[in-house]
């Protein structure tokens, strides 16, 4: 592979079409998205098949622990009441991002031509971030009748200065939110594949990819938590009633 081909492959990581459904190209990132979705649906079906008041199955226990942990985490940001109301969105994001991040650490999976961990593809994280942006605007209008936008005019004297800054800040959010997640996971995948290449040449350096994998396990969890937390912070700010 020439330098040119490598750079092109890196910049369009996971974006060449595998096949077409009508006019829509299906890329390996989309297939990865389907795989993660199927896994989460299977998990949800397995858990909710036999729900019990006092959970007997191990799986139900684990997921109840996860949901309660996420609830206590988000209620630190927006209070327990609103945390229950808005929990489905941050919790879904957390589960999806975590499973997607960890799917990149399964040794063979990311090197298959038809699979890319969805969150290592900018298109996927950008989609998530745009949804967060739109949901924040929807919440601000529906819950507080636009009172959220008052912060744009906060010091009345400085409005001509602060209004453009506030609008830019609001519009930059989806960029930073999506770029942070994508860059972290993509950097991890790249570092891992480089390390594996080094081990193929010098087998003596085997601990190197193991160390990177351990680092990526922490980073994958933290990035999922960051995305969830920031979603909760934005939604919490948009739905806050000022008295």
């Amino acid at each position: 592979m020439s330098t040119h081909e490598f750079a092109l492959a890196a910049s369009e990581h996971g974006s060449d079409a595998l096949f077409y459904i009508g006019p829509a190209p299906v890329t390996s990132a989309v297939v990865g998205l389907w795989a993660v979705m199927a896994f989460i649906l299977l998990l949800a079906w397995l858990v909710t098949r036999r729900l019990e008041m006092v959970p007997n199955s191990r799986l139900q226990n684990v997921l109840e622990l996860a949901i309660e942990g996420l609830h206590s985490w988000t209620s630190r940001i927006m209070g327990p009441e609103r945390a229950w109301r808005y929990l489905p969105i941050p919790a879904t994001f957390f589960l999806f991002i975590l499973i997607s991040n960890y799917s990149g650490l399964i040794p063979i999976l990311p090197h298959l031509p038809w699979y890319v961990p969805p969150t290592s593809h900018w298109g996927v994280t950008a989609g998530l971030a745009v949804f967060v942006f739109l949901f924040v605007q929807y919440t601000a209008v529906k819950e507080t009748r636009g009172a959220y936008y008052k912060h744009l005019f906060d010091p009345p004297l400085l409005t001509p200065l602060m209004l453009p800054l506030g609008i830019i800040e609001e519009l930059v959010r989806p960029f930073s939110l999506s770029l942070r997640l994508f860059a972290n996971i993509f950097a991890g995948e790249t570092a891992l594949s480089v390390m594996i290449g080094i081990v193929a040449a010098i087998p003596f350096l085997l601990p190197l990819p193991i160390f990177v994998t351990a680092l990526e396990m922490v980073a994958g969890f933290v990035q999922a938590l960051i995305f969830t937390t920031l979603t909760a912070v934005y939604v919490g700010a948009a739905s806050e009633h000022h008295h």
Partner: protein
Amino acid sequence: MISSIGLFAAVGIFSLALSAIGGATAQGRTASAAFDAVARQPEAAGNVQSALILSLAFIESLTLFVFAMIFILAGRVTG
């Protein structure tokens, strides 16, 4: 005679190293301040820890923005 790809690679590596220095310094300061706070008030460890993770991720993302930009621009330079 330096090719544009070679120049881009040199500049890219250098800017990544520069942003890594900045990020490492900032993360070190953040972590040391957090540990100071925990040492002073061990009962606040939980709150400090969650704030620490959040701020470390914010700092780290700046370095990774540079990394992502290099990859995205690499396709333009060589393409």
